[in-house]
Every structure is written in C-alpha cells, then in structure tokens.
C-alpha cells in the first residue's frame, strides 16, 4: 500500500483554471486528477491511496471548507492545500486550524503551489505510516482479554504488581502472569516500550489516556 504512487486531486469548479493547475502539477511530475466539485471528488476518489487535495474554497454545492470538515471524520483523509480567489484572514485561520497544509490565493506562484503540494504529500506519507503503525498496535491490543487490558492500563499508569493485585483483588503471582501475557501480546520487551505503545493507541483511538 505504501508503495502506490501518490495522487494529487485538484477540485475546482473553474474548468480552465483546473486544467491549468493540473497541467502544472503534471509537468512537475505528479500524478494528477481533476474534479469540478467536492461531490465529484468524494464519489470518484480511490480509497486508501496516498496523495493530497488542492481545493478551491468557493464552489457551487458544498464549499471547500465543507469538504474539509467532512474529511476530518474519515479514516483515509488526505492533506488539503486550499486555493482561493478571495480568501480573507478569518477563513484562512479557520482552514489552517482545521488541519489544512496551506492556504494559497490565486493567481498562485508555481513554487508556492509545488512546495505546498510536496509538503502535503509528505504529511500524507507520515500520517499514513503513523496510521499503519497505530493500526498494528490496535489489532494487538484487541487480542487482550478484559483482565489483561485492566492490568495493561494499571501497568502503564506506573502501578507496582503488588498494588495492581490489591486493586484487582488477585494474587501478585496472577498479575505477574497477566503482565507477561500483555508484554508478549503487545510485542514489547520493556515497560517504556509498553508506555509508548499505550500513548500511540490513545492518540489514534479513544482509549483512556494513560492517566
């Protein structure tokens, strides 16, 4: 999956501008696809493919900002570079806060666009790796029994085996066995590694933070 060529998706309702931007990005060596509206993009985009979106803010139908907001909920969201004819500061702040890579105004300078696209693709690559990693941790975590999960939570909270045994009402020996089981299932060899795995899990899931 990570080996697939990243695709730059250009969404703009102005045919001629879209064609020009596509052409430029293609000349810069990118794989490019253009869409006249947010709806077209959502329907036609390939799933789980690396890439980024160059998005016009004002379009008939859902606007670029609407698309961004909807995107945030998706698993395979792509980084967004906004391109607008008349952006104002509140709008750009809102877009950046919501995770946009850049907010460019038309007519756009070539270097600015190419840089923004490159960094968007980079971010996508990073995000994608992180997402893949957290996906592995998650599936390891899913193999834990409820008892083991409770022990995991208390271990990463820095509790000693004896304390855990006391809290869970089990013998220290039983806790030790659970702990070994957790370390093995989470494929870690040390406590710090386990703590980091717990942190990563928290970031990507709704797991309770390790205190």
């Amino acid at each position, binding site marked *: 999956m990570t080996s697939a060529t990243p695709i730059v998706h250009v969404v703009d309702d*102005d045919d*001629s*501008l879209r*064609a*020009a*931007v596509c*052409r*430029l990005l*293609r*000349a*810069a060596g990118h794989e490019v696809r253009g869409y006249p509206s947010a709806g077209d993009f959502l329907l036609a985009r390939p799933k789980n493919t690396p890439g980024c979106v160059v998005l016009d803010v*004002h*379009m*008939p139908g859902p*606007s670029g900002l609407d698309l961004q907001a909807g995107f945030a909920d998706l698993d395979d969201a792509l980084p967004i570079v906004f391109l607008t*004819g*008349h952006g104002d500061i509140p709008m750009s702040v809102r877009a950046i806060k919501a995770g946009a890579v850049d907010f460019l*105004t*038309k*007519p*756009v*300078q*070539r270097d600015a*666009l190419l840089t923004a696209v490159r960094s968007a693709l980079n971010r996508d690559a990073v995000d994608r790796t992180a997402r893949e990693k957290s996906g592995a941790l998650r599936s390891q975590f899913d193999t834990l029994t409820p008892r083991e999960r409770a022990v995991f939570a208390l271990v990463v909270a820095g509790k000693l085996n004896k304390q855990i045994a006391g809290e869970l009402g089990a013998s220290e020996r039983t806790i030790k066995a659970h702990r070994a089981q957790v370390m093995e299932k989470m494929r870690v060899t040390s406590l710090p590694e386990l703590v980091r795995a717990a942190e990563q899990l928290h970031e990507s899931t709704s797991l309770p933070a390790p205190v």
Partner: protein
Amino acid sequence: MRHTESVPTTRQAGNWHPVLRTVATVLLFAAAYFVLQRLTFTLRFPPYQRTTIWAPGALLFTAFLLAPPLRWWVYYTGLCIGVYAAYYGDTAIPETSALLAAQFHFVAVASGVLVMRRLGAGAPFGNTASLLAFVPVATVLVPVLTTGPIDAMRFVSGAPDVWPVAVRSALCVALGVLITTPALTLTFANGLAGLRTEIRRRGVEIAGLAAALAVAGFFCFEWPAGATASPALLCAPLPLLLWAAMRLGLAAVCWALVVVAYQSTRGAVHGNGPFASHPPAEMVLEVQFFLFAVSLPLMLLATVIEERRRAVATLAEREQEVRGQYAQLATIYHTAPVGLAFVDLELRLVNVNDFLADLNGLPAEAHIGQTVRQIFPRYADTIEPDYRHVIETGHPVVNVEVHGAPASPSAAGRCWVLSHYPVKDAAGALLGVNTVVQEITERKRTEERFRLVVESTPTAVVIVDAAGKIVLINSRCEQLFGYRRKALLGQSVDVLVPERFRRAHTGHRAAFSESPTARPMAAGHELYGRHKDGSEIPVEISLTPIQAAEGPLVLCAIVDVTERKRADEARQELAHASRLALMGELTASIAHEINQPLGAILSNADAAEMLLEASPAPLDEVRQILEDIRKDDLRASEVIRRLRALLRKREMELQPVDVNDLTAEVMLLVRAESLRRGVVVETGLTPGLPPVRGDKVHLQQVLLNLLLNGMEAMAGVSGEKKLTVRTALNSKGYVEVAVGDAGAGVAPDRLPRLFEPFFSTKAEGMGLGLSIARSLVEAHGGRIRAENAPRGGAVFSFELPACGEQAGRESRAAEKVLGGAIP
C-alpha cells in the same frame, strides 16, 4: 333595313331607287313647267305676244333656292324638256329659240340664287332684310340676264319694236319671279307634310279667302263692263289681300297676288275690267305697273307683320322665363340665411328680407321707406359713413364688423359682419346699395374661447401658417422666448429656431405639411428653441394641424424642459454614484472573476515553461496551453469591459433591450458574489418576451441592486440561501422582473418607505440604492415595488412597458421622416 324601318319618312323615300327618283323629279318638273307655260300662252297679248307675268320663271328659282347646287342639273334637265315640250309647235317662238332662251334663264336664276346666298339670305323669306335682298335680284338681275341676251340678238338682227318688247318681257319675268317664287318656296319649304298641317289649321280661312278673292276678282276684272268699268274697281281685291297679309302671311299674299295677276291679265286679254279701256299693247304695261304697285307693299307688309308676331311671341316667352327666375330669386332673397337690405341713394330702405327683419325684430314691411337712421338708430353712426363711401366711390365696402349695442338687451354681446355692394343699372348709374348682414356671434365667441384657452395655457403656443409665418402666440411664449407679441406676429417661425438647425427645419416643415398629423416633433431627438438673447432652450414640441378658413395652420405646443433636463442630469450623477457604490460592494467578487482567468494563465505559463525544459519538449501540449492562455486572457478582458461599461459616467441611451439577455449578463456579474456568500441563485426566464425600450446599463444597475439586496437580506440565514430571479409578461402587457429572497422579509411598517431616499435597513447602507433604482425604473416609464412573499422572504419586482412591434415601427418611421439630428 333596320335603319330605314326606324325612320319612316326615309323609308318611304328609300323605296324609290335614286335614279328612278331623279328621273321622276325631272319629269315632274318638266310637266309642271309645261303646264304653267301652256297656261301662260293663254294670256298672251297682241301685238308682241307677250303676257304680263311669266310664272314658269319662278319654278326654277324656287327649285334652286330649295335644292343644293349639286342637284341643280336635275331641274335644269327638267327645264329643258319642259321648255322644248311647251314651245313645240308654238307659232310665235320656235322651240329652238325657246330652248336657247331657257339657257339664259338658267344662268340668270343660278346667278340670282348665288347672289342671295352670298348676301346671307339663307332662309330667303321671313324677315325684311332677306325680302329686301330678294326684291332687286327678282326684279332686276334675273329679268335682265334672262331677257337681255335675246333682246340684244333681236336688236342685232334688226327686229322691230326691240325696246317695247324688251321692257314688257323684262317686267313679265320680274313679276313672275317676284310674286310666284315666295308663294312656291314658302309652300313647299316644309314639304307636303307642312302644307297639310297648314291646310288643317287654316283650311277654312284659306278656302274662304280664296273663294272671296275669286268672286271679287271676277266682278272686278272679268265683268264685261267694257269701257264703263271704273278704275276704282281695282281697289276691290285690296281688303282681301290685306286680310291675307295680316292674318295668313307672305305665302298667302303671294298666292293671292298670283290669283289677282291671273284674273287681271285674263280680264285685260279678253277686254273686260278696268284695263279694257286701253289698247292691248299698253294694257300689258298698265297691268304690270298695277301688279307691282300692289304686290311690293303687300309683301313687305306681310313680312313685317310676321316679324312683329314672332317678336311678340318671343318676348312673351322671355317674360315668362324672367318671371320664373324672378320668383326663384325672390324666394332665395327672403329665405336666405343672411340678412339682405337694399338702400336707395337717400339711404332709405327699399327692400329688406325676412332674415334681416327677424334680426331687427320688426316686420319686413315696417322697414320699407324708412331711413337707415330711423330703423337702426343705435348703429347709424357706424354704418352711414360706409353707405356714403359706397355711393360716392361706387366701390363695395366688405366685412365690416358691427358689435351689438350694449344698451339693447337683445343685441348686447352679439356681433355681425356687414358688406355693402353698389347696385348699378345697365348704363352704370348707381341705383342704391345692397347690404349683406351675417351674424358671427357664435364664431366670435368660439374664437374668443380659443384665444383664452391658448392664452391661459401654461404651455407656450405658436400657430404657424403653411408658409411658416407666425399667426398667433400666447403670453407664455412671449415669456419663454423673450419677444414681445408684436415683434413675432408675421415673422417666420425660424426666428425661434437656433441657427444651426434652421436649414434642416425648413425641410422638416415641408415634410410635415405633406402629411400633417398630430404628433410630437422629432421623437427621440433633443430639440432646442432660440431665445431672443441667442441662448438655446431645451424644449419639447408637439404639432397639431388645424384647418382654418385662411388655409392649413399648425399649432405648436412648446414645453420648456430645462428643469427636467437638469433633474435628469442630477439623476444620472446619482445613478453613477450609486453604481460605483454597488461595484464597491462587489469588489471581492470582481477580483475573483478576474483572478480566475489570471490564475489559469499563470499556471499555464508555468506549466509550459516546465514542459519546455523536458527533451523532447511536448510541443503539442505547449501549443494547447498557449491557446488556453489566449482564451483566458479574453475572458479577463471581457470582465473588465463589462465593468467599464457599468462604471462609465454616461447619458441615458434608449434602445430595445431583451430583459432575459440583460438578466443573464447580470447573473454573470454576481455569480462570484453569490458563491462567496453561499447563495444559490435560481433563474426562471420566460422565453420570447417582447423587448423593452430602455438603457441597458441603468436596467442592469437596477437588477444588480435588487440581487445584492436580496443576498444581503439572507446574510444571517442559517438554512438554504436561495435567491430567485424570474422574468415574465404581466397582465398589463409589461415585462416584469422579480427577485425573491429567503430572508426575514421587510417589516410591514417599513415597506412603504423602502424606496425613499436615505431610508435604509442596512447598518452600513446610505439608503440611496433603492431610491435610485426607483427613479431609473420610472424614467423608463415603469414601476418598482416590494412585498413580502407568503412563504417568507421579500420579493422586489419592477415592470417596464414593452416596446412592441408597433412602437418600434413608429419610432423608426418617425426617424425616417424627420431625418437625423433634428432641432
């Protein structure tokens, strides 16, 4: 056949072949001659064997008088045959000599008839003049020419008694022609039918006369009294001859004279009657003198009496005619719808007609014989000088206006026009004066009303005649152009036209007088009048043709539009300012509209540059890019062009505008703005709308204003921001554009004030946009209004009068007639 059937008399004649008819005529004439000549032989006197009267001579004369010269040969032939036959075997004169004498007679008669024709005696008997022409021809010319040559031959051959024979022969021929010709001619002139009519009418009288004459003649001339016969007996037939002359005319007298001649000659030949006392040779002369003495005065008398009788009959006829005409004229005189009076030289009324009598309130008879001063005491001072003038100069005095005396209750306020014409007799002497009175009170009142209306109207009025001369102006006109009334009346209307337009104006005036219809002058063009000080005044002029008694006139109503032009200019300024403000609101959207193609151009250029670095460079793609760059450049300049058109400060320009096209163009302008505001614009354009006559930019401005207001009204709406634009033809035939928004609507108490200046519901609004929109729409003859929609939101709409096919044609036609730049 058809022709002859339709005319019975010619059918009768037509039954005879022309040759047969001619032969018959010849034979008939010859027979008549033969009979008459043989009768004459019985009356020959010794010793010269001459008679008193030679009747056969009249036969040829009558025939030549009645027949055309081309037919004379027929009678000539008859004459020769008759003469030869009559003298055949005669002892006194051999037939060859008689035939020779007939030749002379023919020449004599032909000459006599030609002379009479030459003298113009076409109808030889009927008036004194023609009779007087006939007498010398009959008594001198014909006898001399007939007998002269034979007498000459006898003289040359040394025959005895040349002179006495010559005198008797000449007198014999003269008497024959003189008496017999009128009798035959008048009897046969009207053909046998005329003779029959005459006999039927006076047959008894003629018969009676003839009988009386026969009896009287017998006792007078043939009673064998011998030498005892008294010469007084000669007077016996005279009363009968007078009777014939006075009652029966020339023909009867002549016939009677023929009878008397026959009787007297017979008496003389047989030695009876008063002429028996002399020897026969003398008696011929005696009888001949007697017959001349009787016949000439009687013939003259008959002709004169005939003439008198005809004159009297003609006079009676004329009188009848004149009486009829007089009756007609009298009826016209008394029933004429004008007053008529005839006044003699002492200014006494001789005649007045009923109309004038009614006008004066007195019976017509009461006027007669009175003086003008007695009958018209109040007006005598006014009208007497006119009468005197007519009487002194003999020239008419016409169209004198007389106003009713204020003191007279029946006449006060009335007005008449009087004309006096001299009446002269045939010799040119003045008999009196005829006066015609017409009442013109109504006309005066109408004129006065018209004058007052024109005078009091707030519009400047100029009335111009066909030649362009000013006939009437009102006080507003004096005021507008700065001239006194007197200075303008009679002047050419060109005085009021600025110099630069005068030439064209003359042509337009001619065009108008060719097809005069009421219409505004030079529709669609600016007109100027010229003030006395030379300054130009913007005006509007409407022309109305008037048919007046003095010829066609044109009424020009002139309205000073200086104020309106000033207001128009102010509105243009405001509209421009408002447009600038509107554009200000659209700045961001406009930037987007321009940035879009600019962005495409930049990116395309960048792409091309990068593509050219590759080797081999994809030239096809680069070419495509250049094509796209060109397209985008044009797109950007089109936006700028539209903007410039909207922002330019300009005069109102009227042209047919398709409202749907206009809406579509405005939609392009606000597209970016609606995207920016997240407003969905829905358009519903009714196809096939008639064009409106208007200024495109101003109408765009109105619609733009309404669209932006609509978007503004939905700024705080959380749901769908939908703006609808619809065009339609409404029931009044106006083209309507409605913009509906989905905002909160307008508070009902604010609705009526929305279009007032400086009234705004917006915090930052100046409150001018809608008031300017209203003034722009109203300048197009339209109406703008706002209302709340039942389902929420407000609807702003404006309607404009459609300029249909009709209006378009009219304005084109007017421009054609009136040409280009027209005052």
